[in-house]
């Protein structure tokens, strides 16, 4: 019996499939959460991604990418599908923290409160990131959190490699400007005071 969990899962081994799920679930859920900023949706697309992966396991090519990377590409395109379907409203993280009720709904009143507590520098960055246009923000998250290569990002985002690069550069430029503004504000600088 082969030791490779992917081959075992392909052969219908449930324990191996579960092992794959459990090993890769945290990375996939985290990335989905970053992209969607909603735990309920992130859990849903994570499940979708695993179901797709298990149904199409024979398409996975270990020579091309790690299994985690493959899953990340899948989950990203699921996130984009979801956003398209819902004409997704990007809720700001601030809004989430203010209300703390984002994830409750009538059919599912027992969900624990899952608003993530942001502190200090982390909150500053998220506030800035929320002002970055969506496509660039996605690119930044895939690059700096998902650690995808540009070709992988291009696949996940349905764009060319050079577009993926441009989105990262543009996102970084915007973020640098926003964080710079914030630093100056925090230090008491104002536009009029510069001279």
């Amino acid at each position, binding site marked *: 019996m082969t030791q490779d969990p992917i081959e075992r899962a392909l052969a219908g*081994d449930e324990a191996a499939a579960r092992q794959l*799920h*459990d090993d890769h679930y945290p990375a996939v859920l985290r990335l989905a959460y970053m992209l969607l900023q909603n735990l309920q949706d992130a859990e849903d697309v994570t499940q979708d991604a*695993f179901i797709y992966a298990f*149904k199409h396991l024979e398409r996975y090519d270990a020579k091309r990418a790690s299994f985690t990377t493959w899953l990340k590409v899948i989950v990203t395109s699921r996130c984009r599908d979801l956003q398209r379907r819902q004409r997704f409203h990007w809720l700001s993280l601030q809004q989430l923290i203010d209300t703390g009720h984002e994830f409750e709904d009538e059919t599912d009143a*027992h969900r624990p409160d899952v608003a993530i507590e*942001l502190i200090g520098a982390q909150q500053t960055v998220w506030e800035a990131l929320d002002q970055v246009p969506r496509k660039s923000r996605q690119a930044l998250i895939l690059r700096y959190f998902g650690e995808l290569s540009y070709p992988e990002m291009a696949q996940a985002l349905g764009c060319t490699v050079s577009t993926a690069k441009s989105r990262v550069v543009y996102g970084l430029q915007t973020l640098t400007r926003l964080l710079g503004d914030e630093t100056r504000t925090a230090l008491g600088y104002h536009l009029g005071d510069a001279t």
Partner: protein
Amino acid sequence: MSRHLNDHQLLAYVEDDLPPLQREQVEAHLHTCPTCRARLEQLGETATRLTTALHATGKQVPMAPARSWEAVSQRLAKRPRPARFVAAFRPRLRYAATLVALAVLVAGIAGLAHTLAVNTSDPEKGTPTPHPTPAASPSFPPGLLPGQHHSRTTSQTSLLILGIDGERASSSETDMLMLLYLDHEAKRAFLLSIPCDLYVEVDGHGRARAGSIYGLGEKDESTDGLTLARETISATLGLPVDHAVLVRFESFVTLIDAIGGVDVDVLYAIDDVHFPDGHGGYAPFSIPAGQQHLDGALALRYARTRAVPAPGFDRAFRQRQIVLAAQERVTRLDLLPDLIAQSPTLWTTISGSLETDLSLSEAIELALLTPGITAADVATANLDACCTVEYVTPAGEQVLLPQAEAMEGLIQDLLEEK
């Protein structure tokens, strides 16, 4: 290079994404240009702050892998089944696997305890022979087997498990039939689910549903339920079946109590006012959320309650929790001495709540065969989808007719599964 570098170039430089020549040019420019160096540092700082914030947030995302897997496996089970082994995802099989795991688990404890006791008290004798010799292995009436039955070696053992749900404790109709097959040398095992509606030829009783064989045998003076079930299933599958065991739901309580209860992380508080008391009334109970130690009775209610306080936190999920908790408990080294100390009474307790044709020594043999085989080595399959066709008997019973050729193929696959 006199013009300032753009952000694309700077990022490509940082990411080592430039051809050697361009890289040298960028380096040369940076060396002489403080403006570009400052910009590079600025972009680098943004990237660092972003990465730090993203990873810090990522660590706070609440993880529920068990619930996620539950949902994924349930949804996978719903799809049309291209392969036989997808049956592994079926909830019913999981319930069955729970009972099997518990039975084998406890047999394992008894076996382990016995082995250690033998080693300590009489070192010259050594360990008991782990492999039953052909002569010593339980007799299998050769005449019952179809001609093409599979040859086997002494490292193979098979156990038929019959389950009766506690709700129908007085009934002799079995609602679970499974064949556990272990090959110690090949480190291979399979768990084959046999539908209760399988219409089989029962020696001396004509055709009958598989679920009713046990009852027919109990009423028949010339045999008994376990023997008749073992022989009938063996003849149907063309596979030797060495032993049979009947597990009643209430024995679950005894098994859990025998290992001193289980520790379970109760994800959501359970408050069930409609739990049946077995006499047509209610026996309400509640379990608070958090880490709980459950005794046999409470573990049974926890596994059986139909209250679902949160999606995914359903019976199947909770039953798996109990099995895992039981496994964890018996493998905890600090509890092992206790279990060993109890060994003289343990088997008596267990065998009192299970009906089996296994003697203590045979249980030990079986237990000694199992440790080398992990859950991952166990293939699971169900006869119903691949090997049967629906049929209504003249008496109006809805049954499944076995398809000999498909069944032969499935069993061959299982035996040769790598």
